[in-house]
């Protein structure tokens, strides 16, 4: 209940933030622009519309999560609004979870709106409502949840600009870490192999959430892969939030 109150307040804060609408505007423009792009290029036009659309939802979703998420906790401390909050009967982890769920709720609504525009754009191209595409969006959203947790973790101890840099690095590293897998196979020296394996286990692998190609090309994916990806996302999010709570619990608010 208390977490819900903080989450709703966070939601109110986020939707009264202009940056959200700016990003949403660019996302919409980029989804619609994919049609122009499709006309200009040779190849499978429908696929280009779908590819660009999904990529835009992912990119602008991440930007929303990072730009709002990194400010959430920092602003409360910087503007000292946290003073009155902590003196109320709530625990510090409830505060953090409230912030997290508030932003997740905001992203849920934004992602839904972006998907709606996306589906409409595809519809005007193919005259079919391709609900299957939403499966890819679902996993984009799971990735956004994880990125939100990461942004909040960094904002517990550093400024929004630094936190944004860290969070975006997390995002980029997460999408290239799978290449370590190929590296492991090619490495001969055993200790080096072990080191890279450890690194790979530690780093996030955000390609786990990437079902764009499969969905766009209509490839079949075994359900267990979906299940694995979802569980991976939840576990990683829980891990990051736990870290954030541990750091936040000991902080002095000055």
């Amino acid at each position: 209940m208390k977490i819900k109150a903080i989450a709703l307040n966070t939601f109110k804060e986020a939707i009264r933030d202009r940056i959200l609408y700016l990003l949403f505007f660019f996302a919409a423009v980029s989804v619609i622009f994919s049609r122009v792009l499709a006309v200009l290029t040779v190849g499978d036009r429908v696929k280009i519309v779908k590819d660009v659309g999904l990529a835009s939802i992912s990119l602008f979703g991440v930007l929303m999560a990072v730009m709002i998420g990194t400010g959430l906790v920092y602003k409360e401390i910087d503007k000292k609004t946290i003073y009155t909050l902590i003196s109320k009967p709530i625990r510090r982890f409830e505060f953090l979870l409230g912030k997290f769920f508030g932003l997740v709720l905001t992203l849920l609504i934004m992602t839904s709106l972006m998907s709606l525009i996306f589906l409409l754009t595809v519809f005007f191209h193919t005259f079919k409502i391709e609900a299957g595409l939403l499966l890819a969006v679902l996993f984009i959203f799971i990735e956004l949840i994880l990125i939100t947790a990461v942004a909040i973790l960094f904002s517990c101890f550093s400024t929004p600009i630094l936190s944004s840099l860290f969070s975006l690095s997390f995002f980029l590293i997460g999408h290239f870490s799978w290449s370590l897998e190929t590296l492991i196979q090619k490495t001969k020296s055993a200790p080096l192999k072990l080191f890279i394996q450890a690194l790979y286990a530690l780093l996030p692998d955000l390609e786990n959430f990437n079902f764009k190609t499969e969905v766009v090309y209509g490839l079949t994916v075994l359900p267990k892969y979906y299940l694995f990806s979802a569980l991976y996302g939840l576990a990683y999010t829980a891990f990051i939030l736990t870290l954030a709570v541990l750091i936040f619990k000991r902080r002095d608010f000055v």
Partner: protein
Amino acid sequence: MAAVLKVENLHKSFKVGFIPKKREILKGISFSVEAGEIFGYLGPNGAGKTTTLKCTLGLIFPDQGQIEIFGHSHLSLEAKERIGYLPESPYFYEYLTGGEFLDFYARLFLLGKKEKEERIRSLLRLVGLERAARLQLRKFSRGMLQRIGLAQALINDPELVFLDEPLGGLDPLGRKELRDIIIRLKREGKTIFLCSHILQDIEMICDRVAILVGGRVISQGALEALVSEKILYTEVTLSGLSESDLEGLGEPVSSHGDRIMLKVFQEDNIERLVALVQDKKARIHSLVPRTETLEDIFVEMVRQG
């Protein structure tokens, strides 16, 4: 009477500078606040009043020392259910309206819908902000923020209220209103913990005070015990006499045209002065005995400390 707040041997230091250096701000503070009293926590700027409060409310963690509120740990939810806190300069969510703001805090206490609306309405009336319920906090004036901050501190009908510089940013009328509210809270049986460096406003209403200088409580007790009723001197303003007439009677402070103001230190000098005035057909405009005030004690202590 039972102590509602007990602070024992509180130490806190901050690390400052690029190469962190420890600076001790609180150097072993102990005091206790009894149920139903207005407790003044006084001291000059930078004495550590706000730091003590932040420790008490769990915003920062002391290096050493114990804090108990209603016999519970100060970090427990049981304690926090029963307290209210108005921070030094109120910082609030400026994107909320006055009504939404109070509603948000009411939710944190899990108040029922009807009780919540009732409480919000009566609090807005108490602090005189009925008309600002739909105004965003970013459009509030400094004094209005102070008022909504007080309303927020009272949202759970607390038994113990912490007020940090509650009179800051208020005009004279506002100060009087706030003082009346504090007295009213006391009458309702609440305990008030009042931090301030402004003394005139506070000393009239405090039951007991602790005086903090440089991170140490240098004096505490009932106000009457600290401030004596002794008359220090009498301030007399008169006209129709020349300064030479007044030689030996008092110490001239200022003169405007015919008017002279002087400090008279001995009682029999006053009688002689009054006789002189009658004799010379001069006039007395005012005659004010000055007793010792908290401010005098304060200035004296700060000078010694």
